């Protein structure tokens, strides 16, 4: 990938992205759904878009999913 293509990808923003606050508000609901059925993420496209773009929130998602999965 050329440096310009990499820059274009880095700068691209998804208008569906709901931001950290809204994503964290429903993270527990989202994680329970995804733990039961990975395809259920489709029900929250704005959260999915955010987690794809925000490293810290994605870390929280992965950590919560790992904790929930370890319990089951």
């Amino acid at each position: 990938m050329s440096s310009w293509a990499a820059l274009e990808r880095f700068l691209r923003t998804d208008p569906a992205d709901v931001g950290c606050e809204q994503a964290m508000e429903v993270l527990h609901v989202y994680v329970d759904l995804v733990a039961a059925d990975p395809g259920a993420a489709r029900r929250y496209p704005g959260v999915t878009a955010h987690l794809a773009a925000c490293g810290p929130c994605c870390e929280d998602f992965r950590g919560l999913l790992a904790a929930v999965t370890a319990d089951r």
Partner: protein
Amino acid sequence: MMDRCGNRAATLDDASAEWISALRGTGAAREAGLARLHGLLVRVAVRELRRREAGAWISGRELDDLAHQAADDAMLAILGKLGSFRGESRFTTWAYRFVLLEVSGKLGRHYWRQHPAQHLEAGDWDRLPDRLGVGPGDLAEHADLVKAVRQAVDETLTGHQRRLFVAVVLNEVPLDALVAQLGTNRNAIYKAVFDARRKIRVFLVANGYLEDRRLGPS
């Protein structure tokens, strides 16, 4: 079923109902519930700190202390917000979210103990291609790219956006460390960098550096 705030409450699963009953109860049953929940939160915090590879720079007694602090603070938050739990998820999933967020916040504050001399505004722009994941290649192309982005940053971003863009993108300061340093919240910093990315892209498209291949109105 409606809760005290008039919101429609989901039906609790049996395990969640047991938790709520124990934590809202009195005497030995409540004490047992509190101890059990605290134990779970400590376990989740320890695993999370290890999972995030914080163990590379936090270990032993310090890691245990951080995990207990996160569990203690999460317990306070959970008990304070118990009335807002509406059964939309399992109780433990709802509760674990609090300790995960505490771990993130504490790691953000801990960052500055490891990087006390980190400056937010002075960035090495030559690192930009590397930060974009581009390997060593055409140096002239890299130089053109850096020059164009610097121009976009200087001409389109506010001082606040510029400062955060440099800190996050060039200096790789974690968002949660900036939250701790600036006394704000993650959403505010994410939004500022999100807007900065969008403005830089618009500038680069308008000046012919990038093609307008937007997926939507971003």
